[in-house]
């Protein structure tokens, strides 16, 4: 917990430095894989600073815009009334009733996320909750999608978090987990180790003045179950059609499962 108190402020900067900005691509891929349609209800757990939430909102907004444009294009004989009604629809409901709830156990991360949201102009369809992934304060069968990006490795009881994820998802709902994973290629693995243990804590010290927290991060990555093991854990929680997609040769993996 203390680790994230320290890192909250510099979180985004550190992410960019450590991953050379690639974490942004990983998160983009996650949301593209989700492919949410307008009206989707998302719960983003351990989503502190809002990276996934903002991407989700951008995505559904652009899908909605495209929907409305296509509607206009297909009805060539619209009256002015109908055209202006369509524009009004877009203005009054640009997200199409999509909503994202960001849940994090750390107050500082949430505060940072909320501030970022205000900076970037996000207000609609976004809410923030202080909560524990192992004991979610949400009712059963509520959400269409559950995401946890770079958060599950910090959960003490991953099995409980997965059970909770299953519980709060609607039937048909999707579980998506983006997390550091296992590199099987031996050469790449060695380079990755070198980078992790030699470079990252140094960056942590230089940028955030905190060597130990970033050493912890690197160690937590090493301890985390590899792809197949995590897949099995997700299946144990009841999810079906569980699969994973390696990014960057397994440095990161996206696991997906459905509540069917």
């Amino acid at each position, binding site marked *: 917990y203390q680790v994230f108190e320290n890192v909250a402020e510099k979180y985004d900067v550190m992410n960019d430095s450590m991953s050379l900005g690639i974490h942004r691509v990983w998160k983009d891929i996650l949301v593209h894989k989700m492919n949410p349609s307008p009206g989707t209800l998302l719960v983003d757990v351990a989503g502190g600073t809002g990276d996934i939430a903002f991407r989700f909102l951008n995505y559904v907004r652009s899908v909605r815009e495209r929907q409305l444009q296509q509607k206009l294009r297909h009805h060539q004989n619209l009256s002015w009334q109908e055209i202006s009604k369509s524009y009004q629809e877009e203005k009054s409901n640009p997200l199409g009733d999509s*909503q994202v709830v960001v849940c994090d156990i750390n107050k500082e991360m949430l*505060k940072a996320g909320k*501030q970022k949201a205000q900076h970037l102009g996000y207000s609609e369809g976004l*809410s*923030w*909750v*202080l*909560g524990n992934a192992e004991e979610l*304060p949400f009712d059963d069968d509520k959400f269409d999608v559950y995401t946890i990006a770079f958060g599950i490795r910090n959960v003490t009881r991953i099995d409980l978090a997965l059970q909770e994820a299953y519980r709060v998802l609607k039937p048909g709902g999707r579980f998506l987990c983006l997390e550091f994973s296992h590199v099987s290629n031996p050469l790449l693995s060695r380079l990755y180790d070198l980078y992790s243990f030699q470079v990252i804590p140094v960056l942590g010290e230089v940028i955030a003045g905190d060597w130990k927290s970033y050493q912890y991060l690197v160690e937590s990555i090493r301890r985390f179950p590899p792809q197949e093991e995590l897949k099995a854990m997700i299946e144990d929680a009841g999810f079906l059609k569980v699969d994973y997609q390696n990014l960057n040769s397994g440095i990161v993996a996206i696991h997906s499962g459905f509540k069917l």
Partner: protein
Amino acid sequence: AAGSRGASGQEQGPEPGRPLEPSLLRFLVCPLSKRPLRYEESTNELINEELGIAYPIIDGIPNMIPEAARTTRKRPPAEGSERP
């Protein structure tokens, strides 16, 4: 922390009594019992009557960690509690 004003033009008071996003009440339950909560406007808390606990809302963010909740049982569950 940098407290710059947002571009969206929302009001940002630092008062702890800021109520939560109304749509959240659709989803929120007590993390322990998973039972519904009652929003108490006077104290800006979410109350679980059955268990007699209240979760605070700070800066519009509900704190749904059981350890942070306070018990309401010392007095009849009503308005006028001592702690904000």
